[in-house]
């Protein structure tokens, strides 16, 4: 079974409607089959990868082409350098399986790298054991859709990000499934972009990570069982709607970590079974509304340096602690939320509690300083201190109240 298969590059059809754009079929073989085909192709040709394993890496795509995999077409990078490096506009790469990119400490190698391009589409590919998955740098108006990116990540520091975007505008990241990487999606200096319908699970650091990015929207994504769900840092005007932040358990795990961000909206999300649902530090002028925060250790940890945030009409159900803060003053506004720990009454039956609710729990402040004190939670002593503190606040912030606590939860539909 020697290598009797030569390099076969055959002209299959001429597509009349595309002028002189051709469709070229590729078959696995010896040598640099893909690179040679790209070299010989004319701009706007289509290369169809026939079934088989192509052993090749460092493939430079420097002209507008359509690269299309048939079922079973696999490009194996053999633990070497990057597989596809796209440096031309108007490229589309679809339906391929790419695997095995080597780990390097000196270079962030990716299965697919886009460098200074626009209008490139990466769709429906499967990436396996590639150090970084798809890496966009200084690129605009690109689409990353429907890809499944799975890392190997047997050792944690050897994992890169599944989708890594560094400097870009108007990128669409949709319908991808990302797991076992460092961050599922990483944005650094990415503006006016859209992230939706992705599933990011079992990643080691964050499901989604924003750094220095503005005017982005992410919605309808699922972030489950990551180191932490989503981190939004040093970013402004981010809209976060209808996402699910689930099962981020661990000593310093958060559903959503907000740090130095302002003017965003957080609406209709579900935060469930996280150590801390929402952690906010230096967050300003955000509107958090209609979210469900359920079964978290701490539903919200909002630090004293957060200002002018409005927390309205949310459901807080079954959390151990509802709100935690480290300041005696409160510069945020809580109104019209449903708190399952509310113990007031509603005599006039208008659905709103007659007494304000203080969601900050004295014992939450203590356990924040002395974690071992968790042992005493729900003991008689702690519960009685709790009641006394709510009546005559000494340690909990006096103005942190919800004056319109709801008697029953809102019937929002979170899927």
């Amino acid at each position: 079974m020697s290598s009797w298969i030569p390099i076969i590059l055959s002209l299959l059809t001429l597509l009349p409607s595309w002028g002189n754009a051709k469709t070229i079929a590729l078959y696995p073989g010896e040598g640099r089959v893909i690179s040679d085909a790209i070299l010989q192709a004319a701009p706007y040709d289509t290369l169809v990868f026939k079934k088989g394993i192509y052993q090749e890496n460092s493939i430079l795509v420097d002209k507008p082409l359509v690269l299309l995999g048939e079922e079973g077409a696999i490009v194996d990078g053999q633990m070497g350098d990057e597989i596809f490096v796209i440096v031309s506009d108007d490229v589309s790469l679809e339906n391929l399986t790419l695997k095995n990119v080597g780990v390097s400490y000196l270079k962030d190698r990716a299965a697919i790298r886009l460098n200074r391009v626009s209008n490139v589409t990466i769709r429906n590919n499967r990436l396996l054991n590639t150090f970084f998955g798809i890496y966009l740098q200084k690129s605009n108006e690109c689409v990353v859709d429907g890809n499944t990116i799975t890392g190997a990540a047997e050792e944690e520091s050897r994992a890169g990000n599944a989708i890594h975007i560094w400097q870009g505008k108007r990128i669409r990241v949709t319908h991808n499934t990302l797991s076992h990487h460092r961050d599922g999606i990483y944005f650094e200096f990415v503006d006016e972009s859209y992230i939706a319908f992705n599933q990011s699970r079992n990643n080691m650091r964050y499901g989604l990570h924003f750094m220095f990015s503005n005017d982005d929207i992410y919605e309808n994504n699922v972030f489950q069982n990551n180191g932490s769900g989503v981190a939004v840092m040093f970013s402004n005007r981010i809209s976060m709607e209808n996402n699910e932040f689930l099962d981020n358990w661990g000593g310093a795990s958060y559903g959503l970590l907000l740090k130095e961000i302002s003017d965003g909206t957080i609406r209709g999300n579900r935060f469930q079974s996280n150590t801390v649902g929402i952690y906010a530090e230096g967050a300003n002028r955000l509107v958090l509304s209609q979210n469900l925060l359920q079964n978290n250790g701490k539903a919200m940890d909002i630090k004293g340096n957060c200002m002018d945030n409005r927390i309205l009409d949310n459901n807080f159900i079954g959390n151990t602690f509802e709100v935690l803060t480290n300041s005696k003053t409160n510069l945020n506004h809580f109104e019209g939320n449903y708190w399952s720990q509310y113990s007031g009454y509603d005599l006039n039956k208008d659905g709103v509690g007659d007494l304000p609710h203080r969601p900050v729990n004295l014992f939450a402040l203590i356990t924040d300083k002395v974690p071992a004190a968790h042992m005493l939670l729900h003991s008689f002593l702690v519960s009685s201190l709790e009641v006394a503190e709510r009546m005559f606040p000494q340690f909990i912030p006096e103005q942190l109240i919800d004056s319109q606590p709801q008697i029953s939860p809102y019937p929002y539909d979170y899927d």
Partner: protein
Amino acid sequence: MNRFLQSYFLLGLVLLIQSCSVSPEPIKFGEDHCAHCKMKIMDPRFGGELVTTKGRIYKFDAVECLVPYLQEHASMEFGYTLAIAYDEPKKLVDVRELHFETDSSYRSPMGGNLAAFRQSQNAIGNELITWEELKEKKFYAPTNP
């Protein structure tokens, strides 16, 4: 009986000495969190550690997190100030033995584009600065390059 007592005494003594010693510990990548930005420490080419004179340890995912932490906690006393050298990943080195360089090709975790070098010839060749110069710098005012 006497032997038992002796061994317990020895064990106690060992624990006592251990607990009093002020020494750095290696960063557990993928497990430890940055004391400043709360991010998990992942990239073995970047990072740092502060050990107070009382032995409390603070770990950082990047030098650009360690420096502001030092500046914000000027009253604390540190026995060790360590950083990871880009040319010797994972290893913590005293900052005074390191040279620091800023270049956009160093993708450090908090956007400082800052790397530390043990051997100055391993750097790209931009301006190298010492720890004394670096620790006065201000970080977290990134501009899109």
